[in-house]
């Protein structure tokens, strides 16, 4: 039994579009252990969702294509599996909460049906009634009020947050080994968000479910994850245990990110400090460090050479920067 549940090595996923090749994920590697909660943060459009979709092999194709690398799940390369094997994995061993809950639910089926369907698919011999029971149970678990009745509603009758919770319910219904949650709580208020995150942590304890949590809410990362990777323009620019990210961020992008967070204790009227400049267009060849044009500490070397992910500071902290702080 391999120690790592998931091992992503040199993953490259490109989109071949009319205006060029978009290198959405370019040489990304990371690992996850069973039960581990991995936070993925980063620039909007930096390839977080595409990385996640690559793992479950649902990148829209065409135009998207995984052009390189390997994804080992329980030691087996997912990229070499055929469709049948993938369908076995999806929903049961690996499940995913998609970023856009509004369009990710089938408008013509009831909520309950869509959850029960997953259960029926992966639990052999379960009856329709039992599957439905499980669906209601899951809805309850994600705090949908009046679950029994609302199970019969259709997605368009649900609020954004409720749909998002339905997506979570679907993903959790079969106690997966790996849960990929792509911004699962953006539409949830903090109390429910807390409960949902609690729920996920509970699963990790009970079933050893590993959680890959993509989010912009660094507070959520702080409270939920053990390890964090930071993505920028298709690359991982920093990877570290959660404390180190917040206490000793190494990559200038990470630092910029942390500085842009509004704080509860600030005075009214202060301005937020975003990172200046624009992210690069991924459809063009990027030479050197992709962050160089926006980096306050940029050196000539940064514009010519791409920095590799290297250990910085103590322990497991890695950063892709020639001049980490």
């Amino acid at each position, binding site marked *: 039994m391999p120690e790592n549940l998931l091992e992503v090595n040199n993953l490259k996923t490109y989109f071949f579009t009319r205006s060029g090749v978009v290198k959405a994920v370019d040489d990304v590697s990371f690992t996850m252990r069973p039960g581990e909660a991995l936070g993925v943060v980063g620039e909007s459009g930096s390839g977080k969702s595409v990385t996640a979709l690559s793992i479950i092999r649902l990148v829209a194709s065409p135009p998207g294509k995984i052009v390189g690398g390997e994804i080992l799940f329980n030691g087996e390369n997912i990229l070499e599996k055929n469709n049948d094997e993938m*369908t076995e994995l999806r929903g*049961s061993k690996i499940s995913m909460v*998609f970023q856009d809950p509004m*369009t*990710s639910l089938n408008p013509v089926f009831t909520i309950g049906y869509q959850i029960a369907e997953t259960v029926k698919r992966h639990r052999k011999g379960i009856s329709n009634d039992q599957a439905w029971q499980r669906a209601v149970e899951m809805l309850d678990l994600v705090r949908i009020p009046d679950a029994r009745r609302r199970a019969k509603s*259709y997605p368009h009758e649900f609020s954004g947050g409720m749909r998002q919770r339905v997506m979570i319910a679907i993903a959790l219904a079969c106690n997966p080994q790996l849960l990929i949650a792509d911004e699962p709580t953006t539409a949830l208020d903090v109390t429910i968000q807390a409960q949902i995150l609690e729920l996920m942590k509970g699963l990790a304890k009970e079933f050893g479910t590993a959680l890959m949590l993509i989010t912009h809410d660094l507070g959520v990362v702080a409270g939920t994850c053990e390890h964090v990777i930071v993505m920028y323009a298709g690359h991982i620019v920093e990877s570290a245990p959660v404390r180190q990210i917040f206490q000793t961020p190494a990559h200038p992008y990470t630092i910029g990110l942390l500085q842009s967070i509004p704080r509860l204790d600030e005075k009214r009227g202060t301005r937020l400090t975003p990172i200046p400049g624009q992210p690069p267009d991924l459809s063009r060849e990027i030479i050197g460090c992709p962050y160089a044009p926006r980096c306050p500490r940029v050196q000539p070397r940064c514009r010519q050479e791409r920095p590799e992910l290297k250990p910085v500071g103590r322990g497991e902290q890695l950063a892709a920067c020639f001049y980490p702080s």
Partner: protein
Amino acid sequence: MIQFLIKRLIGLVFVVIGVTFITFIMGYFAPGDPIRTMLGEHFSPQLYAQLRHAYGLDLPWYEQYWNFLVHLAHFDFGYSFKTQGRPVWDILKDGVPVSMELALWALVIYLLIGVPVGIISALKANTWVDTLNMGIMLVLYAMPIFVFCVLVQVLIVFIDQETGANWPVANWGEPWHYTWTDIQFKLAPVLVFGLAGAAYFARITRTSMLEVMRQDYIRTARAKGLPERLVIYRHALRNALIPLITVTGVTLGFTITGAFLIENIFNIPGIGTITVSSVLDRDYPVIQATAVLLAIGVVLGNLLADIAYTLVDPRIKLE
């Protein structure tokens, strides 16, 4: 719902009156005259006048139309001009079930062949599979049905002559009976009719599946680990059904008036021939009756389609 049905019922009355009125007016002004036609080449003015009077055709048009409506209210379509002894109702009673039977089976074929072929084409869009599928379907569709029918008949004759089989070249068995003899009669016309029209369903399915297949919820269905078969038939197809329901509803409505050419060539005692020949013969009671029938069929077909819309897509509301 009750309100909805009542609305539709009023709509039906409106459509029936509309159709019969237009038909009536058209018949009134159309060249050709039923009595003229009855007399054929034995025309004589006195006899003509006599018969016009006998049939009430010398009344002003509004009185004629009113009389028609009064009878219609009692479901009395009167007597055919052409086949004197028979009430129109009688003619319809015999023909309609046969026509409906033929058309319904054809519809079954449209759905059983057209829809899967359309799905396959959509999944393999723009590959040779798609081109081949669509090619075959479209050629069957574009080939005029009378040519198709005759080809099949010639084939049957050939088989009969060569093998001594006695497969029927034409005719129809007992309506809604399915003994082996009945099936022998019905198989060829149903297949011809079904295959000739399946392209419509195949094409519609293809295009609407193409739209649906790239929606996010299809990705969700895959992420649940559903096998592709279920993803397609359960999640995609259901969303692609709206146009199919539309055409099915319309097709259902039209089952009532029969398919002239195919009934004609395969000698099926449906209503199709009567529908067409009544126009050519200016047999107004029959024309009106078929128009009323078709109106009912169309309204009902569309009503069913509208109800089906809401069943298939909960976002669509009635009214």
